């Protein structure tokens, strides 16, 4: 194996390691942090089924964003939807052995690269040209979009501009990563840039704003049932406070510990 192949193989595993360790840490942290009060935001569902539907609408359709800003919603939604299609499109490269018929049907998903880029450019433009959004943007916010645009752009150049790397090499490299049967990767610069940036993206996931993906499921304003009067909601630390101490009816002069 060439040095490039070895480095890229190692970097792939390294980024996946960071991804899984970092993300597990954050998810466990969110999970374990108590929610002391009922704070669902209107329109707050009164039943669990309502919360379930709300989450589905938020995650799949970006309902609240639709209410706030049609342009941001449009660019954001087509970008995310295209990203899902392109992810599915890439599975075929990693599938060891015989490829299921359904994966073969993802071929046309490659065209999702166009809405992906349009969405990203739209979001980038908004960040540049709307004074309010420009004000709140840090360098990392622009860089994240640039990163995604370059990943999408390099992929498009390979797919649509006759720069396709040797597909057999791509396949054996990708499958090799899954089956731990490592092999040589194509040395086309576009391809190397493409996968390098994807590894970067995976690696920074748990330490960047990409945490919005797991975060949305833990957002108490969105995932709580509005039933505080019927069912007592109490956090572990507040209950501890109640059990630890002799309760007196007149606790008003008591100071915060």
């Amino acid at each position, binding site marked *: 194996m060439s040095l490039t192949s070895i480095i890229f193989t190692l970097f792939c595993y390294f980024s996946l390691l960071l991804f899984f360790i970092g993300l597990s840490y954050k998810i466990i942290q*969110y999970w374990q*942090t*108590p*929610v*002391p*009060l*009922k*704070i669902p*935001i*209107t*329109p*707050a*569902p*009164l039943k669990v089924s*309502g919360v379930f539907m709300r989450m589905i609408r*938020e995650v799949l359709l970006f309902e*609240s*964003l639709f*209410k*706030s*800003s049609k342009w*941001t919603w449009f660019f954001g939604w087509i970008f995310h939807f295209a990203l899902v299609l392109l992810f599915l499109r890439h599975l075929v490269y990693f599938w060891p052995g015989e490829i299921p018929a359904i994966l073969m049907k993802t071929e046309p998903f490659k065209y999702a690269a166009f809405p992906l880029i349009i969405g990203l450019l739209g*979001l980038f433009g908004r*960040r540049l040209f709307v004074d*309010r*959004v420009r*004000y*709140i943007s*840090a*360098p*990392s*916010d622009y860089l994240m979009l640039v990163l995604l645009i370059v990943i999408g752009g390099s992929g498009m150049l390979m797919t649509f501009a006759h720069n396709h790397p040797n597909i057999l090499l791509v396949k054996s490299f990708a499958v090799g990563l899954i089956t731990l049967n490592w092999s040589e990767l194509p040395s086309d610069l576009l391809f190397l840039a493409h996968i390098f940036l994807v590894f970067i993206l995976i690696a920074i996931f748990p*330490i*960047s*704003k990409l*945490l*919005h993906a797991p*975060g*949305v499921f*833990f*957002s*108490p*304003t*969105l995932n709580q049932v509005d039933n*505080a*009067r019927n*069912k*007592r*909601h*109490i956090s572990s630390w*507040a209950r501890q406070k*109640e*059990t630890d101490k002799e*309760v007196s*009816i007149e*606790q*008003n*002069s008591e*100071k*915060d510990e």
Partner: protein
Amino acid sequence: MAEVDIDKLQTYIKIPAIQKDSMAGDGPFKASAEIQEHLGFPREKVENWQQVAIEKMAETTSKYRSVQVFLDTCVKCGACTDKCHYYLGTSDPKNMPVARQDLFRSVYRRHFTFAGKYFPKLVGAKELDDAMLDDWYNYFHQCSQCRRCAVFCPYGIDTAEISMAAREVMNVIGVGQKYSNQILGRINKIGNNLGMPEPALRDTLLDLEEEIEKETGITVKLPLDKEHAEVLMVTPSADFFAEPHIDGLIGYAKVFHQSAVTWTMSSYASEAANFGMFIGSYEVMRQGALRIRKAALDLGVSRIVVGECGHAWRVAYSFWNTLSGIGGGAIDEYALKLQRQLDSNYPQPQHIIEFTYDLIKKGMLTFDKTKNDHRKVTFHDSCNVARGSNMGNIENGQFILPREVIKAACNHFADMPNSTIKASTFCCGGGGGLLTDDLIELRIKGAMPRMQALKQSQENDGVNTLAAICAICKSQFSKVLPNYDFDPYMIVSVHQLVSDALVLSDKSQTKTEDSL
């Protein structure tokens, strides 16, 4: 009328271009050493305040999932940037919800995240220095915790949670706001925000009884500390003295009179408002809730009803059961005792609007709606009711019930534009501990979006009466309406409308309604 330079009022909401530092300043008056000490906070800014603040931030993020998740998940999409009434009214970019959160988030990133520790410039991480603390104090007291931004955020990020967290951090380092903390001191000492002692309260209620009798010829009681009444009525103390609030209190009394449900108020817990929420202190908020629990136990009531007060209703509806266990599931003996005492046929607590609405549905109240015919009424959804509570245990009940009560008492009702009511309602501009004269410029400017919507309704539907169910809204509107060329007396309690149209029966004699 307070003199503040404001633009001519439009009938539509225009998103302003940002004007940096247009609301820069020192913020509201700071609490004195005595006030701070009374709440258990340091008397003055502690020497190692940065360290204490960072430790408190660590504690808060470990105790509140909301704060932890909200600090991490914001992607700076900008959806909230044009949703805050203070931004729309002041153009100061730090009043954009995300920018306000970023004051806190940038410090969080610097101290608690990998990227912020090693690449602070890249991710906008900043140190908590004097300038940052000044910005915290100034801009976290330009947030009324109304939650409008949270409705529009794709992740439900609620700036109110961040502003509460920031205010608590500031209190813990000894930098408190005078207005909120002074009021909290009074309620802990005397039982209400005004510091109105029992004899004064009793006199006020007697005066009101006389007034009602003079006006209607019928004896309507406003009982205080009456043991074994069915209902304990807990209402914001502004209802005892302020205009137009007091007419709402008369309305409650008339409704109770007609319902034949016995009721009482408590001199020990003569305050529904709970400013503990505004300063983000669970413990202070809990003390307020326990005070009401004690009053309910001592008086032996079987129901608790809350008067017209926005944040009080949020605390009562969403938090009381957590704080004092009044609805079941609590473990301490007083909560258990109260649970046995309270009537489980009713939600506990109930809002006075729910109480009145139930009576209307049962046909127990008779209205002469023509008494309100000079009024063309619109309803201002108060933010804490609209976005932090429910009524009637039906979806959107907090929007439906008050409107139904108004319509039962009035012939002419028209809503303000859809984008400014219900879940999208604009704050009055004075909520969240900002109802103080040292913030008058902010209050006037922050009221602008609501005033614009009101003007549109005035022009399109001839609206001349603005009804609300929040003591802060009522005080704020009375003050700022003249700045926008409205009649300051156009703001009324919903229960004033009820009061004016309700046909009273004389309970001392057996008369039928027809004979009245």
